């Protein structure tokens, strides 16, 4: 009898076996049952936006841009075992951890966009146009990622859909050609241009992608491609594309002339989100650990007060007195550089990200401005310059100078022709966009990504500069996952 009892007990226990082994994480939803409603999709789209805040993408981007082009300075060469200094000193190697971070962060952002597009049709939408507006926003974020990658690394792995299996990942993880990457960028941006998105974004929705952003980024990518010596034979037609896209962007502006917008209103926290000049911004909200930015801290000095309510800043990416001296007395932008000393040396730090209201944690309200109209204007100047239309180029250059309050002497103006005009346009970009993360791409365009032009100029700044520095190395830990498919950029392997 007792035996039967035991068997009965055992049977009862076993009946519950399969359930007993099903454990699910009480803290999170699993992907299998996630994409169920429009709200879920909205949240995924939001995460694609949030990916732009990833570290070493736009946040802390100065290493890869202003510092790398020696527009600003790496103030502590010994920090992080010298890994930061490598950008300034042109001694980058493929193991540089920050390059890896940037590469990973950008692909992660692209991945979020892809994932959204992949699941778009899992749900139905109250307003059917929502679907395409979501896809447009995601595609812009993807295009922005590929633009940054191709400009800095050259031909990178490019793909146009979510990678859902190990095999797809393996197949996609190989370098293509720069042309393929640019084509993908254009395809995505054309989709945005044809989408139901609005032309520009109101302050209340600041941070959202709009059509003008797509036109402007299209123009920017096309300009980057057109000024690449590799595409010299197609330059004319790509430039035409850049011009038309940038003009489209310009024509959709909601102000009269650039000079109607005070330079300070681009940065003032009370006006920044709604500033008509600002086309696309990565949006932050002050005093919040999840939503705040730390640009005030990053670009502020260690010793001077009145930049941020977090007293001590990082003294990173400061520029030199020599660069400060190039500004005209009346230049409105000059006030956005302020003198400080660090470790006994005089520098100028940025005031663009001043925030006295961010609280002691330094969670600031400063946005990162990815695209603004001054950029569009100067890109138009560039495009016309490369197209040989100096009159038109000067017109756009003047628009930006006028707003800054710069008067160019007749003497100086007369030298602004040929490479003199080229230098004037790019110098203007440096002055306008210092601390905004443009200068390295600008230099590549200025010198056509042409080693014969660029190497001597940079070698004069630092003899370590060589051919290799035109592109970043593919991060080592990525390269070894597919050494054949991801050959290293020249010069980084002692070859």
């Amino acid at each position: 009898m007792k035996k039967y009892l035991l068997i009965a007990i055992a049977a009862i226990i076993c009946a519950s076996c399969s359930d007993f082994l099903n454990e699910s994480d009480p803290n999170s939803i699993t992907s299998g049952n996630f994409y169920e409603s429009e709200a879920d999709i909205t949240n995924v789209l939001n995460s694609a936006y949030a990916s732009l805040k990833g570290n070493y993408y736009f946040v802390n981007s100065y290493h890869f841009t202003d510092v790398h082009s020696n527009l600003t300075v790496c103030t502590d060469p010994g920090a992080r075992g010298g890994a930061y200094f490598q950008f300034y000193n042109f001694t980058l190697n493929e193991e540089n951890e920050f390059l890896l971070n940037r590469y990973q962060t950008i692909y992660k952002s692209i991945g979020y966009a892809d994932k959204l597009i992949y699941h778009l049709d899992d749900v139905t939408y109250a307003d059917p146009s929502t679907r395409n507006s979501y896809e447009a926003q995601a595609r812009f974020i993807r295009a922005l990622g590929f633009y940054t990658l191709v400009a800095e690394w050259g031909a990178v792995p490019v793909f146009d859909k979510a990678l859902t299996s190990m095999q797809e990942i393996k197949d996609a993880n190989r370098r293509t050609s720069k042309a393929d990457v640019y084509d993908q960028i254009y395809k995505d941006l054309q989709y945005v241009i044809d989408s139901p998105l609005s032309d520009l974004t109101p302050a209340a929705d600041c941070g959202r992608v709009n059509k003008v952003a797509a036109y402007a980024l299209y123009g920017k990518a096309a300009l980057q491609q057109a000024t690449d010596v590799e595409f010299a034979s197609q330059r004319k037609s790509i430039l035409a594309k850049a011009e038309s896209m940038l003009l489209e962007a310009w024509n959709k502006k909601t102000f009269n002339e650039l000079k109607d917008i005070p330079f300070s209103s681009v940065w003032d926290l009370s006006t920044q989100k709604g500033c008509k000049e600002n086309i696309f911004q990565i949006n932050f909200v002050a005093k919040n650990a999840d939503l705040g930015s730390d640009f005030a801290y990053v670009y502020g000095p260690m010793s001077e007060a009145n930049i941020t309510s977090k007293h001590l800043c990082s003294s990173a990416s400061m520029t030199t007195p020599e660069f400060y001296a190039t500004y005209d007395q009346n230049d409105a932008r000059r006030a956005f550089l302020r003198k400080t000393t660090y470790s006994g040396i005089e520098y100028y730090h940025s005031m663009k990200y001043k925030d006295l209201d961010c609280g002691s944690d330094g969670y600031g309200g400063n946005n990162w401005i990815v695209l603004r109209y001054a950029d569009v204007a100067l890109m138009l100047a560039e495009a016309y310059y490369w197209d040989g239309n100096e009159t038109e180029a000067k017109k756009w250059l003047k628009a930006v100078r006028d707003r800054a309050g710069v008067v160019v002497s007749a003497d100086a103006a007369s030298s602004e022709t040929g490479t003199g005009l080229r230098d004037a346009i790019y110098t203007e970009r440096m002055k306008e966009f210092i601390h905004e993360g443009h200068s390295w791409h600008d230099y590549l365009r200025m010198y056509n990504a042409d080693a014969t032009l660029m190497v001597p100029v940079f070698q004069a700044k630092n003899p370590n500069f060589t051919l290799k520095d035109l592109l970043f190395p593919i991060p080592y830990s990525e390269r070894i996952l597919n050494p054949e498919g991801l050959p290293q950029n020249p010069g980084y392997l002692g070859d």
Partner: protein
Amino acid sequence: MRKIVGLIVSFCLLLAASVAMHAQNGIISGTVTDISGEPVIGAGIIVKGSSGRGTITDIDGRYSISAKQGETLVFTCLGYKSQEIALTGASTVNVVLEEDTAFLEETVVVGYAPMRKSDFTGSIASVKAGELAVTVPTLGQALVGKVAGVEVRQASGAPGDGTTLRVRGVNSLTAGSTPLYVVDGYPASEDVYINPSDIESIDILKDAASAAIYGSRGASGVVLITTKRGVKDESATVTYDFSYGVQTLERKAKLLNAEQFRDLIIDAKNNTYRLRATAKGVTWSPLDDNDTRTSKGFSLSEVGIPEMFFDFQNGVPREQQYDTDWQDLVFTPAGVQRHNVSVRGGTKNMRYMASLGYMDQDGIIDPSNHNRINGRINLDAQVTERLNVGVSYSMYDAHNKIVQAAGRCLNDGIVQSTLMYLPNLPAYEENGDYARSAMILMNSWGINFPENPLVVAHELDQHEDISRHNLNINVTYTILDGLNFNARLGQQWYNERYFYYRPMSIGQGQVPAYDPQLASANISRTTSTYDVDRLGEFTLNYKKQFGLHHVDALAGYTMQRKTYDRVGVEAKGFADDRIHEVTAHGADPTDIVLYKTRKAGWSMISWLSRFNWAYSDLYTLTATFRADGSSRFGVKNRWGFFPSVSAGWTVTNEPFVKNLLGNTPVSLRLRGSWGKSGNNDIGNYSSLASISTGAYAFGNTPVTTAYEGAFTDEGLGWETTIQTNLGFDIGLWGDRVNLIGNWYNSISTDILYEQPIPSISGSTKTTTNLSGAKIRNRGFDFQLDTRPLQGIVDWTISTNVSINRNKVLDMGGLEDILRKTERNVLSHITTAGYPVGSFYGFQAIGIMSEEDYANCLIDKQVYDANGGKFPEGYTLRGPAQNNYDLANLSYGNIIWEDVNKDGIIDTSDKKVLGDAYPDFTGGLSTTLRWNGIDFAANLTYSVGAKVINFQDYYCYNMEGSGNQYAIVADRYIDDEHPGRNNVPLAERHATTNTSNRLASFYVEDASYVRLSNVTLGYTLPKAWTDFVKLSKVRVYVSGDNLFCISPYRGYNPEISYKTSNMEAGFDWGGYPLSRIITGGLNITF
């Protein structure tokens, strides 16, 4: 062999003879034989109550002893029943000793049901209570060096901290390699915190065949712990143990003194100045003052020398005001006291054991402290003739005051701060307060920023309360004769309250104490944890003797589920440091956030069986089979199956061998086993892709974000280890000499690993089974136990040695796994042909002389002229460089090995620099008892292991940015003064020598010999104790970790900061071990 045996025997006889010299009366002699008439060698004969007179039998079983008529002789020998014979006139007393069948039937705990020891054919290591040093605070420490094939590492000396056990090497990459602990049959999922005094025995299952009965949790070995229980029909024994010990730092590190540091910083700054100036083409002089240096565009952090070190006016170094020995201030003597009371006994139907332990241990870093109570009640009741019920309850309650020894100084790692803090700075202000943030305030001079370690230790408020309870009910019902049903039901509770408060009085990073900017670090955290583990086990066991055949079979079903629940809160915005609790948080709503809040769980179901057949003490065969289902794995691979077989042959019981051997007292047993066991020790839910949430904002409106977590593998399954074990057991003279040897070969496959995947996937890694990957552990372990003397003098000597070779045979198509440890340095590689987590970096092969430097400058011209590379076929004149930047190029720099001979030092020049695994480890222990005196000593050693002393990142970086190891004083200055000629030039940019790389000189030999325990005890004569109505009183003194001889530069050669197998042997601070001198008292009432 016979010769050696003979030698040992005669030595023993000699000793015994000397003992027998006390005899003053008539001589009694005779022979001791067993029932078959064979002489019993080495049997002990004592005159009862004489405390001192005794002898042993010789090789022919003969003895002689002086004794009075009327006295009683006691004959003892292991494996035989003892006999007492009263002397009644005869001067010849021959004795026939009966075999102790209880001894032959001795059982061994091997999982779920005990087995006859003689039937066990796997590989096991056993330690009995008497062999454990109980003066150390934790069980693990008591095991150090005791068992072959088991490496016990003392990585941390923090009060209350345990040890790390590794059975036969590491067989996993990301999954844990901690053995499974089973306490009185309860498989605890984590390390056990048990009172060492409660332990009856510890048995460690080493081979896969033995561990296979524990299936998916057996691959890293199984530690079976049996606690003391009551004894039937024995009146209560009450014991009280007390000890008090003083702990001091075991080994001190050798660091620069104030003057040596001063010279280093001056040297480093001047060298940097020289290099910067040379690169820039400007003039320089070491006597240029700081203003001159900065006017040339060089920053103070690189080239400036603080006034306190150099008098620029007179151009001479300054006399230093202080020479603080930070180690002496931080590591101070600390007391430990322990009380233990236990009672044991039994009636016919009831057995009981109860104990209560109290321990209070201060740490050598004041004010760390561990204060705990252990309680245990073990009850066993014979309810009816067929029904037995055992109930065990144990509790552990501890309060720990924590100081954080490990980690980076920036993260409050005290050990690193102690090493780095400048001896040139005072510890205290004149008013008696701590001197705070002195180094932090020197930050602009390129000085690193540890806070005064005394401030961190005393003012960082960190403590925890932990309690564990364990209820274990065991019901055995005898269904038929030989057939038992057993149910084990149990539950374990784990509760923890953790508390942390970081006041404004501790500087951090570049922010000095009390600076308002510290507000973001001025936080309080508290967590509350409640974990529950439930177990149900049901087994049927059948034992039967059929003639010469013995059968022992077991079948069972078990379920276990563990849930984890933790809530934590982090608060900030404190008005001041007066209140440390989270309740004092600021008014802002964001001042309170969640901290480490989590819920999780896992469950397991298993079927198990074991069949054992033995034939006439000659042949034994065991087979086991277990099936495990675990919630941790993907639905597709949820069940794992773990078979094993093992066999034994007692050669010397074979009749023809017996005839051959005649009277030779030798026994030999051969064993072989094969088994498969598993590892499921990865996190929960690894096979599920989960959605994480976050936040973004449009305009000023926050929105929720949701994103899919990393790529996951639905097919995730077990990691499997297959191990073959061949072994022998040799016995001489019964149990006088025992030699156990094992050879094993274990191959682990389906390795669980967080495989790196291309970034284009959006993730960087995913947990998966590497099906083609193979990790091998192969080796020998030997254990020799001898008992040279028995009787009046009882002397044992044991030694063991373990040799394990770990090797990754195949990476399963995976690229080499490179791991970054601290400061983003790639330091470890896991690659085919080398052990798991080998050290990987650049090999230093010398120091650049001035001539080398001149040659490099010539190379540089060629390099620069050719566009930043060398022309095809160019032969380097100087040593290869990383780059030819003048600001980095100097004589005195390290010459790195250009492994691929391409003239440039880059990633392709890295090589394997060693690994954390010893070539062999072992121990030597001895015990000696005579006339109430007992002595025990235990020596442990480890040879061939290496450690990355990553404190070198700061303490051997030649920068003068913090204090350095003493070896730095012996650096290269110039060709005339090359020092020891392997320590490079001092330079702020010594980073060019080591920048983000692992340099071979960080890898140090971590071999050691340690006298882990010496105990000397004395049991007071019976007459005295009778007088105070006590049955036994023993006093003792002991020393733990008395010395440790090691070439290692840091504190503890056994350090392991990182828990991952792939980042083994890494020193980034850790609580140093202490030497403990203890005095104690054992009283039995």
